[in-house]
């Protein structure tokens, strides 16, 4: 057994517990938003200086413990499993600490919002503004995605999402690898070194602005948060001062007379449209069917049947290959070691009872 005092201090139980309590406490308090309006998530908090310093010390500590256990005299009987557990836990902790440090150097995280039929990359849509989180040595995925189908599974109330599935065509532009992938909102999909997860969906109406003579002046799909039914969102068209407020009812709706319009019950999908020009309400709230034209001054606006859009979160992080296994090894071994220790204590008590009764 080593007599190195520095090594033994570095491997002490107090330091071990202290580091974990510090890391867990720091992450929990930061994630809670008690001091800030938003934290960005646990992984980003683990990339901050205090967490990285603690992870570095934890890495040194884990190696010190492994050395202590490996250089300890081999034990037979009840001591052997506990020594083995100590080695594995230390190894798991070393992997976790290394994973946090590697993640802080290599993590790439971003979100994209794609409508059915829309492409990402290769001149198509890009990542959502403000969503890209890229560390110094990150390697953003070079890919092209074509969103094929968005399928939400809803609860009976039609307002809450049970599971959100997205089917998309994926192409790795470096290797040329092409495939159809399916991701959902419950479990992240891991493909080609990248994690994909669907997190939100809504509707993209297609607006068309035309002159009274029928000439189309402007048209486009607009990504809007129109789910659950009755949710309102708004959009503006560049160089126009109007604001268009929309709600979408895909199944039709019974409209209360005194809340929205006096139209009564309405069959089939429809929009509820309102148009303001700065603080002037130029078109009061009214139901509009797909394709129906509404006058706004010298122009007309109409909306076609909407398509669904989905928000996909993309993560590429080399640290996760260490962090995940490290957590698993440390937890599994801790549980196993705990069981061994309890077993050992119970056997010692039995031995002590037998010894007392034989006196």
């Amino acid at each position, binding site marked *: 057994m080593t007599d190195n005092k520095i090594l033994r201090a570095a491997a002490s139980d107090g330091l071990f517990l202290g580091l974990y309590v510090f890391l867990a406490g720091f992450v929990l308090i930061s994630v809670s938003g008690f001091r800030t309006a938003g934290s960005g998530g646990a992984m980003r908090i683990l990339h901050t200086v205090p967490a990285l310093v603690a992870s570095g010390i934890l890495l040194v500590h884990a190696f010190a413990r492994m050395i202590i256990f490996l250089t300890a005299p081999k034990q037979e009987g009840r001591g052997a499993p506990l020594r083995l557990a100590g080695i594995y836990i230390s190894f798991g902790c070393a992997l976790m600490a290394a994973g946090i440090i590697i993640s802080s150097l290599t993590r790439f995280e971003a979100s994209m919002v794609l409508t059915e039929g829309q492409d990402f990359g290769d001149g198509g849509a890009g990542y959502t503004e403000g969503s890209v989180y890229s560390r110094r040595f990150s390697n953003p995925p070079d890919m092209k995605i074509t969103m094929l189908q968005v399928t939400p599974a809803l609860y009976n109330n039609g307002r809450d999402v049970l599971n959100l599935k997205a089917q998309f065509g994926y192409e790795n532009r470096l290797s040329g690898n092409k495939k159809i992938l399916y991701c959902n909102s419950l479990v992240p999909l891991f493909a080609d070194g990248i994690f994909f997860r669907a997190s939100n969906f809504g509707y993209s109406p297609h607006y068309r602005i035309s002159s009274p003579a029928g000439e189309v002046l402007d048209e486009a799909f607009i990504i809007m948060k129109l789910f659950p039914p009755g949710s309102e969102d708004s959009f503006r068209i560049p160089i126009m001062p109007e604001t268009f407020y929309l709600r979408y009812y895909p199944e039709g709706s019974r409209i209360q007379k*005194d809340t929205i319009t006096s139209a009564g019950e309405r069959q089939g999908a429809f929009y509820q449209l309102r148009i303001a020009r700065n603080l002037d309400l130029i078109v009061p709230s009214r139901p509009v069917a797909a394709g129906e034209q509404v006058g706004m001054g010298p122009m007309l606006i109409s909306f076609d049947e909407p398509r669904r859009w989905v928000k996909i979160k993309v993560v590429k992080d080399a640290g996760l290959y260490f962090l995940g296994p490290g957590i698993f090894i440390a937890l599994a071994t801790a549980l196993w070691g705990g069981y061994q220790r309890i077993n050992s204590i119970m056997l010692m008590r039995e031995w002590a009872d037998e010894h007392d009764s034989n006196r």
Partner: protein
Amino acid sequence: MTRTYVMVAASAALAAVVAAFATTPGSGGQFRFKVGQFDSEGEKREIAETLKLFSATYAGFYVSGGNPEGLRSFPAEMMIKRRIFMDINSYREAGLVFALDRDRSDIKEIRFADATHAAATADEFWFMQFQNAATRRPLSAKKANFVTVRYFLKKQWGKWIVLEYEVYGQGDELPPLETERIAAW
């Protein structure tokens, strides 16, 4: 064993202190907001004054046909200013002035998401009229416009400014106002 407990307790305290201070600027204000030490009445008065200045200056821009005097003190985000002047310019090109006058404004609710984000809902009554830009001769009847406006505000450099607003007509159902939506601006 005692040393272990001391180490654990010291680590927990250190985590709390580091998490409390190793955060973004303005976190002291967020902390005070979360523990209830926030002068909400004082901030509501400031927001009410801000909206009063906003409405008065907004009307002044339209009535003057786009005179930029007051633009520096106009408590609004740049995109709002741009939209207003885009609108005024389109009227001017048509030889029109869109004269506005706010008759009444009742603030119904002010809600805070945190120390620097708030949403205010106000019922407003405006009079509007098109006039000839050169002669100021009325070209339309005076129109009364009753709207409910939901303003989204943010406190920047010690002052509240309007980041965005939503306009609703009489009888329109206002969507529920969630904290995340207010703080999103």
